[in-house]
């Protein structure tokens, strides 16, 4: 008795399994509505999307790659993968968190406004984080930074007191290490 089952209308107690964060890489046919289909699955079944990136990766083959960072219990994550795999335009799905240490990067553009000492401090920090200056005015900078989400977040929080006015981020994109490629 009292074995916790994955999910059901008949949960009388909340599932207390730990929530994990996983990065999924999904190869899809680049057909109209395919992104709506994938994110509709997430909203329809109550799964989380923490970050989402999508772009065509093979123009000739009409194939796109969707990278989704999602969170849930281990069982929910397995279910998410199975639900994605059975969608008609989905070629393959890889859970990069399970398959091994994948390389994860995101890009952010960060606008900082300020004068005097604040400008110097902003440039010093940007240099330390290897952020590039992509726009300059008399009283502002736009920095471009790439790296792991944690590094981007740290950079943003350091810029906060200096005069951060606007941030845009691409969300995480990821690829596995080693020679193996995800099946198309």
């Amino acid at each position, binding site marked *: 008795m009292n*074995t*916790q089952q994955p999910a059901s209308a008949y949960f009388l107690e909340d599932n207390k399994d730990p929530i994990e964060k996983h990065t999924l890489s999904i190869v899809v046919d680049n057909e*109209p509505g395919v992104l*709506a289909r994938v994110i509709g699955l997430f909203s329809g079944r109550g799964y989380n999307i923490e970050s989402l990136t999508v772009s065509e990766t093979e123009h000739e083959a009409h194939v796109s790659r969707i990278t989704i960072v999602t969170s849930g219990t281990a069982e929910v994550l397995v*279910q998410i993968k199975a639900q994605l795999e059975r969608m008609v335009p989905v070629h393959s799905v890889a859970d990069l968190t399970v398959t091994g240490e994948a390389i994860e990067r995101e890009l952010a553009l960060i606008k900082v406004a300020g004068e005097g000492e604040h400008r110097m401090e902003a440039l010093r920090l940007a240099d330390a984080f290897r952020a590039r200056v992509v726009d300059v005015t008399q009283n502002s900078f736009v920095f471009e930074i790439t790296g792991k989400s944690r590094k981007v977040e740290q950079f943003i929080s350091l810029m906060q007191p200096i005069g951060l006015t606007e941030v845009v981020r691409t969300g995480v994109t990821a690829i596995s290490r080693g020679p193996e490629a995800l099946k198309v």
Partner: protein
Amino acid sequence: MNIKAESETMTANAQEAEMMTGAEIVLRALKDQGVEHMFGYPGGAVLPIYDEIFQQEDVEHILVRHEQGATHAAEGYARSTGKCGVVLVTSGPGATNAVTGLTDALMDSIPMVCITGQVPTHLIGNDAFQECDTVGITRPCTKHNYLVKDVNDLARILHEAFYVATHGRPGPVVVDIPKDVQFATGAYIKPDNIEHKTYKPRMEGDASAVEAAVEVMMNAKRPVFYTGGGVINSGPDASNLLRQLVRMTGYPITSTLMGLGAYPASDRQWLGMLGMHGTYEANMAMHDCDVMICLGARFDDRITGRTDAFSPDSIKIHVDIDPSSINKTIKVNIPIVGDVGTVMAQMIRAWKARSGQPDEHALQNWWNSINTWRNVECLKYKPNKHVIMPQYAIERLYELTKDRDTYITTEVGQHQMWAAQFYRFEEPNRWMTSGGLGTMGYGLPSALGVQVAHRDALVIDIAGDASVQMVIQEMSSAVQYELPFKIFILNNSHMGMVRQWQQLLHGNRLSHSYTEAMPDFVKLAEAYGGTGIRCSKPDELDDAIQKMIDTPGPVIFDCVVANLANCFPMIPSGKAHNEMLLGEDVSDEEVGSAIDKEGKMLV
């Protein structure tokens, strides 16, 4: 159709291929897919297709009175034949009216292709007359859907739609065709070499998993087969293999609502349906078993009750063609992804190849326990001389129709559960009901679809007085096409199941579950051009049913039954399989307090 999709090949093909209009392509594709019947309703955005229908004789079009009726008719047609149901509706309201039937087909895995008209391509997004975002609306309620923007893609998409609808776990597919695409001229390609680029469901089960499953089955002491609609979807071979496998092992078998008929109800190994309104013996066997062999069923919440107390001590084997059904609600020990028929054939081979035998002594003990549970006679009800008990009505209907070529459909509610409990199915594809979505109004149009496919059979919609009124206008289609199906209404003047739940959960306050203005069903039948029969006395019931059977043409049978009968046995919400409420001896107080506070939150 992987290569043909490439644009260059497409152009090359186009030169050899026959050129025709989009509307002609639709009819040609249907013909080449072997479609004989379709259900539909015309409108502005599908007029070119209707014009083609007018000029051909290969595909018979059945005109319904509401698009929901078309979808359920296609479901009944598909479920009773194993073929793909085809629906044709117009844009906007035509498409939105089809949504209920599409969702129903998705939940119950019924193969269906639904062609919807759309406003011309240049008007899409313009809030045009009778425009709606059909692919957007139907995306979550179809297995897949398409918006055809180029007439040269139309033939490929239609063939692909049939492939997707009927392969793997079946389901509904929508093809949305703008009106200009129906008029435009393009190349027709034949459905040869259909192979989908990405959708390739796995048929064969993993050999080592099958081997492991058979090993566990062979060593079982308290085994049970738990089968579902997947066996029926897999085709008649799967039902034959199931019979072979179950008889070979000598193990007991139960089934979900959707799986009834795959195994004959008259067999001594049959325990009856399981689940919320399943039999005592089936649910107790599921709870106490040590090996559960789940074939083409999905551990729906109507089956499991509370999951933390579901069959706590069993090794679970789960065969399903859809990997996402495995470990979704219940963790299983041996998952096997594959077509249930193919996997059963593998199991039978593996079983025969083994030298061992199951433990006969243990099995004997198991059957003894099962027989004790059977002796509880959970379906017993108090007979009544003055009022027709609903259970009695189904029993008599069964006795008087069992030796005929009979198909049964139902609506949703108490009558559906009584039909499942008291009508005994010997063959697959004879039982059409809305299981997953629970759509009131399913039964009447579904019977229409069944009768179109089986003109000479006796088709009966076992209905409730509330459900039947939801899509009752299809009675008019029945008269038009001389489809002589019978609508057998268990009329208790209430939404019986709603009333039962109000008694269980809400202090018997019958909020809006009583129909104060019931139509005269006999006159209604006559108004449509059919025959109406009313019966309210138990001793007149047999003659009345016989009269219904003997009447040519459609009949509405108003069977006036006991108003306040409850459907038992029942696993109350939030309870385990071994905590069933049994029918005969339950007092109204017990019914009122059967569900605790937490259970009331559940559905």
